[in-house]
């Protein structure tokens, strides 16, 4: 899966023809490598990289010399390195203009996937060199990325398996007296030892005073704590996620009651998720469960962010699972549906699995037990 994604190259070439783009540039920086990696799946060190598709040739620009050896074998055009990335983009624009002049064109239309993330000075450099402002290809490329190829699904399955193992490790090592950040250190170590490129992880611990997850603190776990986490390991570029809640000691009746509501909400989402469904309804059926039990107010933005999201080369891809986001679900999308929210019964609670949309429904990619964990 690492290297040039031929399937994506074919898709992007078709997209360029459809939109009459002469050049498609895929921009990435250290935090958002996903647009670059959707074509050139290389874990660059950065801070910046760009791939440019033009007349069947893929060029690459990196900002650190160490990245040249990684990226060059994956593209069929030149790979150049520029510490001054704006200057590098200007030089790349000249190369692209020249390539077009050779085929009898004097105007180059350029689209950028990730344009919104690009530092303004970089876009200005491109604009000045090209004599025209590039247009955004972000939405179109995101749409292509939302449906996964068999190779991408294979990566996501491996990432989901590692998420399961990571959670198993989490549940094994947690103990009263341990600090949140020490637990995260153990899990990070485990995931990296087992081949994760990266991991997005949030955590929270405590009781009904806990309203959301965040990075780990120095707080030490106590008996009775509800400990929530979302683990999102990355394998060959692709993130899969698991959300689970663990109680230290015997769960109290309120924690059990809360979990039963979350369980019903998660199941409602999985029962509905299939091709042709509006993603808004996947959020609605989760929220309806909370409404049924009198907790409707805890389904809004005051207490929760989203009821799930797409997964892939970014841990939080579009579309978001929200009642006001309308998007028709397609086969081979990989989504997490998680009814994570605050409830006065238990404090913040999380529960969800990575789901692959199949022909007639969906299948969970995680194998971790579906239960309220306790230790």
């Amino acid at each position: 899966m690492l290297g040039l994604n031929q399937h994506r190259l074919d898709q992007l070439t078709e997209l360029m023809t459809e939109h009459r783009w002469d050049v498609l540039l895929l921009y990435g920086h250290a935090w958002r490598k996903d647009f670059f990696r959707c074509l050139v799946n290389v874990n660059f060190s950065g801070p910046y990289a760009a791939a440019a598709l033009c007349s069947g040739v893929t060029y690459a620009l990196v900002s650190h010399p160490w990245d040249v050896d990684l990226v060059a074998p994956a593209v069929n055009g030149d790979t150049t390195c520029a510490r001054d990335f704006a200057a590098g983009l200007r030089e790349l624009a000249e190369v692209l203009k020249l390539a077009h002049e050779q085929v009898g064109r004097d105007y180059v239309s350029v689209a950028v996937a990730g344009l919104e993330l690009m530092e303004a000075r970089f876009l200005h450099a491109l604009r000045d060199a090209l004599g025209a402002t590039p247009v955004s290809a972000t939405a179109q490329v995101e749409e292509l990325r939302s449906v996964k190829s068999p190779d991408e699904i294979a990566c996501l399955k491996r990432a989901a398996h590692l998420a399961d193992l990571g959670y198993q490790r989490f549940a094994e090592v947690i103990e009263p007296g341990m600090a949140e950040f020490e637990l995260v250190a153990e899990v990070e170590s485990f995931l990296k030892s087992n081949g994760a490129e990266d991991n997005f992880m949030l955590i929270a611990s405590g009781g009904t005073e806990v309203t959301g997850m965040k990075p780990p603190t120095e707080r030490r776990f106590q008996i009775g704590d509800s400990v929530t986490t979302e683990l999102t390991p990355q394998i060959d570029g692709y993130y899969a996620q698991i959300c689970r809640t663990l109680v230290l000691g015997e769960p109290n009746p309120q924690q059990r009651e809360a979990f039963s509501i979350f369980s019903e909400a998660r199941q409602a989402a999985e029962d509905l998720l299939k091709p042709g469904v509006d993603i808004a309804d996947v959020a609605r059926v989760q929220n309806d469960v909370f409404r049924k039990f009198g907790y409707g107010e805890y389904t809004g933005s005051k207490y929760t962010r989203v009821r799930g999201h797409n997964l892939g080369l970014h841990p939080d891809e579009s579309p978001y699972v929200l009642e006001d986001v309308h998007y028709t679900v397609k086969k081979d999308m990989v989504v997490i549906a998680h009814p994570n929210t605050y409830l006065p019964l238990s404090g913040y609670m999380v529960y969800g699995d990575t789901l692959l949309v199949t022909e007639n429904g969906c299948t969970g990619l995680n194998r971790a037990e579906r239960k309220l964990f306790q230790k």
Partner: protein
Amino acid sequence: MKRGLITWHKDELPPQAFDTRLAAARRVLSERDLPALVVYSDVWRSNQGRYFSNFMPYWNRALLVIPSEDKPVLLCSLSPRVYPWIKSVTILEEIKPSPNLAQRVFEMATEKGWTKIGVLDEGSLPYDLYSQLHAGDLEVLDVPASRIRPCADEWELAMCARAEKLAREILAEEMPQAPGLIDHEFVGRLERKFRRAGAEDLILLIANPGTPAPPTGAILRQDFAVAVALEYRGHWVSIAPDGTAHNCLSPAGAEFL
């Protein structure tokens, strides 16, 4: 990724450091006749906002607004549910929920009667935010970071020295035992040690030997080397494979210099 310990120990980084930095920003505002300075922050480009307030957004975006004659205000896209935590690890007392950052800047400017603002290194803003800020009636002027922080201050140097010491100590402990291990396993060991020692973020590249690169599952040779970029409480240091250390004080922070 930012998932280590984000905290503020005032014995390491006293409030006086932030007072001094904010005063420097206000001096430049006064010289430029600007009523406020806007500082962009996101999960990756957090270092400028961190410098003035100790704020680090583990997710999403924020703008730190430093008025010339008032306390700084955070315009934050994160949920108000985490504002108590933000206040506990920063100098910030006022945080305004801001799903649309540019809109909130305009509202604040109207409320305060500002007709222009300075933006720290505005060319480094993400293009969508840059465009939105320039689409309003507010005059937006670039304020180069180098005008306010021309060189590292004593607190930055002390924190970077602490980070470097931490990195060197852990590498000295772990490197001799590494040959023969799979690179992933070695990276896992380092992650554990660094994170338990309080590392906030960590990037590890392996040269086995050759160009440093992410681990690939290879067995480490006797002559392998490692490149480390470590963020300790908002301060980055990198150790190159040859052992050279660099304080990474650029906005992006985690650059191997």
